[in-house]
Every structure is written in C-alpha cells, then in structure tokens.
C-alpha cells in the first residue's frame, strides 16, 4: 500500500475515533463519580441534531458546537434529576434517555433531513491542512484537537487535581465522602452535566464533520460503543485514547477492506465488525488477570441518599 493510502486510512481512523473518544471521556468522568449514565447514545443524537440545526440556521459552527453541548447537558440534567434527586434506577433512566434522544433528534431533525452544512473540517491553513503528508497532523477538524486536549485535561484532573481526588472519592465511597462533608449529589450533578456536554460534542462530530448532513439515527449505536470503551479502558483516560483509536480502526475496517480489495465478505458482515469487536473486547478485558473490574468505581450505579 502506498503511503498516500495509509495516510488516508489514518485520517478515517481519526474520524471514527474522535466522536467516541469525546463521548467516552465525559462518561468516564461520570462513572468515576459513581454514576452510570446509559443515555450516551441519546445525548449524542441530541447534540448531533442541535449542532446541525444551529449551524444550519446561523451559519456558525462554533455556535452550533456550544448549542450542542448545552442541549446535551440539559438532557443529561433530566437524567440527573431522576437518578440523583429522585433516586430512580440509573439503568432504566439511562435507557429512557436514549429512547428519548432518538425520538427528539428525529423530531427536530425531520426538517433538516438531507440538508448539508459546510463541514467543520479544517483547523489550520490549507498549506498545512492539505499537504499530502503533514495533513496527518494538521489536517483535522478542531474537534480532533479538542478531543486530544480534553484527554490530557481529564487525565490531569483525575490524577493530579484536588477536585478530581474528591470526585474519585465520591465514586469510591459515597457514604464516606458524605460523612467527611463533601456534597455527593452536587459533585455528581456536575459530573453528569460534563458528561452530557461531552456527549453533545461527540455527537456534533457526526453532523458537522463526518457526514455534514442530517440523517435519522446518525450515530448508529456509537454511543453504546463509547460506553464499552470506558470499561475497556479500565476507567483510565490514556487507555481510553488508545482504545478509541483501536475501535476507530475496527470501525473503518469496512473502508479499509474495500480499499484493499477485500470482497469475500458481504458488506453486512463488515458492518457487524465494530459491534462484534466490542463484545470480544469486553470479554477479553473481563478475562484478563489485570482486568478492569478492580478499577471500576465501587459505587458505580448505586443510588445515594444522604442520611443524617
């Protein structure tokens, strides 16, 4: 394979990895605080449609991104209110959020089906961004660079900052954190809102960069893969980065296979690959002796109610 082909494959891998990395980073922080939000797919869709609608109407992609983050964070607050304030079941509420997001996004998006916007492709000047080799580094959408910066920030936040220490502590033992005097519910609300905003950012990658148009269920289950990615990464941001790019490679296998002239597999089987790979990876990580389960926050998914 020529280097041009390799570079173009690498570009597609980045494209596939970035949205799930963004969404999974948010979910990682949410889960570290002890909350399991299964509504990732729904929030990504809400973000995707909001980003598209706002960008289409205003012509401003940055405005679209901000609106997407706000909309998804708002949706995550429905989840937060139900699970944190009303102590509803987190699994059921997350599922409801996903179903809600699917419905809401296609409701909002029906006026936009098939329309396109100017893709948010480029960060750097054309000389760099379209250079045959350097585009590997400079030829990406701003969201790609944002995702990398956010990975570093989240890693720093969780391991080095005091706020991150408190967040981890709350995920580790909500009752101990409460008795020391930390606001368990307050911190979890913030984490859930952050998770929502990141999911919105991830979703907008699909509607503003990858396809630059709106179609129903644009994210096609990638939100669930992002959830699996958090488990795969054992709740560690840098492993998350590696995992996202690994998954990105698998997800674009269909394209690679075509480029490499593979034709013995029907396209439907190639399309199954990311989902099958997710199952395999989840199994491997569960079997591995240094498996992720020890790293799971001890309070993940358990409702907390402050007692005197």
């Amino acid at each position, binding site marked *: 394979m020529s280097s041009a082909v390799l570079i173009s494959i690498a570009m597609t891998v980045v494209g596939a990895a970035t949205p799930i990395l963004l969404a999974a980073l948010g979910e990682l922080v949410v889960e570290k605080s002890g909350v399991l939000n299964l509504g990732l797919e729904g929030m990504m869709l809400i973000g995707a449609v909001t980003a598209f609608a706002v960008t289409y109407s205003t012509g401003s992609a940055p405005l679209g991104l901000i609106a997407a983050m706000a909309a998804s964070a708002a949706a995550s607050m429905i989840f937060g209110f139900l699970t944190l304030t*009303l102590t509803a079941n987190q699994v059921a509420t997350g599922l409801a959020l996903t*179903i809600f997001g699917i*419905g809401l996004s*296609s*409701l909002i998006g029906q006026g936009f089906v098939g329309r396109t916007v100017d893709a948010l492709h480029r960060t750097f000047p054309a000389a760099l961004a379209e250079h045959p080799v350097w585009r590997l580094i400079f030829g990406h959408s701003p969201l790609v660079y944002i995702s990398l910066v956010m990975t570093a920030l989240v890693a720093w936040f969780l391991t080095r900052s005091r706020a991150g220490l408190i967040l981890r502590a709350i995920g580790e033992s909500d009752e101990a954190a409460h008795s020391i005097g930390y606001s368990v519910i307050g911190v979890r609300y913030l984490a859930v809102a952050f998770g929502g905003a990141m999911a919105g950012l991830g979703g907008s990658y699909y509607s503003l960069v990858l396809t630059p148009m709106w179609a129903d269920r644009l994210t096609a289950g990638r939100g669930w893969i992002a959830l699996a990615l958090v488990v795969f990464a054992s709740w560690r941001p840098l492993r998350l980065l590696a995992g996202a790019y690994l998954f990105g490679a698998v997800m674009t296998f269909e394209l690679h296979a075509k480029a490499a002239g593979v034709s013995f597999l029907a396209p439907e089987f190639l399309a199954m690959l990311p989902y099958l790979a997710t199952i395999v990876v989840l199994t491997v990580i569960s079997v591995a002796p240094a498996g992720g389960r020890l790293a799971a926050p001890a309070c993940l998914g358990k409702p907390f109610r*402050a007692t005197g």
Partner: protein
Amino acid sequence: MRLRLEARREPSRAMLYVTPALAVAMTVLAGIFIFTAMGYDGLGAIYQIFITPLADPYRWQDLFVKAAPLIIIALGLAVGFRANVWNIGAEGQYIVGALAGTGVALASWGMEGYWILPAMILAGILGGLAWAAIPAFLKTRFKVNEILTSLMLTYVAIQLLYYLMRGPWKDPEGFNFPQTRLFTEWQTLPAAVPGTLIHLGVPVALALAVVAWVVLARTVTGFQVRIVGLAPQAARYAGFSARRTVWLALLTSGGLAGLAGIFEAAGPFQQMTPQFPVNYGFTAIIVAFLGRLHPLGIVLAGMVLAVSYVGGENAQTTIGLPYAATGMFQAMMLFFLLAVDVLVRYRLRLSGPGAARPHQESRPQAPAAARTPAPESASA
C-alpha cells in the same frame, strides 16, 4: 418553605397502582405543552394519539395486534428486570427469532402440513433463545456486562437481517426487492377472531401473561427471581444460584422475544423484510416498567403503548405530527413513571426552614462494610 422527601416506613401499595396512571396523565399534559410549543395543535395531537384509537371500534383490532408482541416481549423482560438482569437486546432476539422461523418457512416452502407452523414457532423461540444465550454465557462465564453485549447483538442481528434479505433469502420472483417470498397459508398464523386482523398471537399473549403471573407470584422460581434481584447476597444465603437465575432470565426473555418475532413475521408481515424491526424490543422495556414488572400490569401497559402507536399513526396522517414524536412520547412516559416512582418509597412534605429533618433512630448501626439497602431519610 421547600419540598422534601420523607422515607416511608413501608412502601405505599396505593402509590404502586396510582403512579403509572399518574405518569400517563403527566405525559399527556407535557405532550400538549410540547407539541403546542413546536407549532402543532397540541390538544388535537393528544386527541389523535389517545382518544381516536379508542373511539373507533374498527381500530380496536389494531390495538390488539400491536399490543401482542409488546406484551410477549415485556413479560420476558420483566423476569429479567426483576432479577436485575438487564437484557436490552430484545430487539435483536426478536429479529433473530423471526429469522429462524422464516428459515423454516423458506425451507418448507411449497410443502403442506399442520406441522409447518408449529415448527416455525419452535424455531422462532429457539432463535431468540440462542441470541440471548450469548450474553448469558458471557455474563455467567466471564462476567461480561449483559447490557452492552445484548445491545451490540441487536446491531449484529439487524445486519444479519439485511444480509439475508439482500442475499440468500431474497425472493427469486420478487423483482430484486430485498425481501423473502410471501409465506403460504400453512405458514401464516390463523386469525383468532375470524374476519379480523387479530391473529393467534393475541390470545397467546394473554395466556402467557396469566402463566407468568402464576409463576412469578406463586412459585419458588418466581420467588428466586425476585430475591436475586432485590438482594443477591440474601439469595445466595437462601440457596438460589445467581448464575442459574441469569440463564433463566435471559433465556426466558430471549425465547419470548423470539416468539413475538415469529408471530409478527407469520402474522401481520407474512414474509420477512428489512423493514421488519420497528423497535418493539425497545418499546417493550417501557411496557415492562409501566406495567410495574407485573404480568397483568404489562397487559394494560401494552395496551397503552399500542394506543400510542396507533394514535401516533393517526396524528401523522391527520395533523402531520412526525412519527418520531411517538418514540419521544413513549420515552417521556417512562421518564414520568421513574419520576413519580419516588412516591412509592417517599412521602412528599412541605417544610419550613429549620424544621426537623427525618431520621430513624431505630436504624441499626450496620458494620462498616455494609450499606443500608433502603435509602432511609432525606437531608439537604
């Protein structure tokens, strides 16, 4: 003054029954508000969704036909949810069940005999079972979370469906449309009420609800499912195997989803097409919760959701409300149900500032490692 929650000493039985109705009522109110805000005739939309399907006796058969698969799938899911086994891939099991039954139909195409339909149904059940057995195996053997695996398998099932429709199972006389042959009369469900659309699946759904009710309420198996879900450690102490319960829950829900799938294929569809999946497997999750995981509640909830489906189609044709609105509407119902659920365990109290906060002094001082299972009192 602020609103605050006060733990009840015993969960309120009255609220258990009142809250689902309350959730539906709140969804209706929110629906009027939201649809109006979006520029539709809000009241008209609600009338179309909730009243017209009931007002027109001719549409009642539609309700039963839509409710049957929802009820059958939700009954299985309820077993799992009670045991804290989260099979959310019923949609995939539903598809694979239908595919397995279709396989039998295609293999027996042109044959005659009373054995064909039962064979298809059996294949449908086995197909759903097999698809659910994968997450069950992975969970019991490797402790892989069943939520993600069962869901991933749904996407796999959809691709499998597409592959079969476009490839090997395509109707050779179908002008290259990606769909199978029409099933023969030996391969389609007979009508349960002659002259209507109501097929055999409808009475079967009702019968299954009664069976599920007896099993869940009266048998040791039903008790086991409940205990494993409520308190896994106590279940072990009582001699109930968690592993067997996972298998039981997933196989039951998978088998029933497969049954619903082949009923749908051999009933309303009478063939297999790429348009076959219509999210019944996901909507059934809402049905299961709205029905309080109780078989009779599920029958009622299945009817409510069927009304919203049929009404949603009404609203689509009469006032141009998009089909997607139905899904959002159904999700809102689940949101409201989860929200008002709190009333079962808590009392709402208005309190002034500085008033005593609730607390039960009689609570035990459990060992450090243990957490009191029932959230007990509220504070800021």
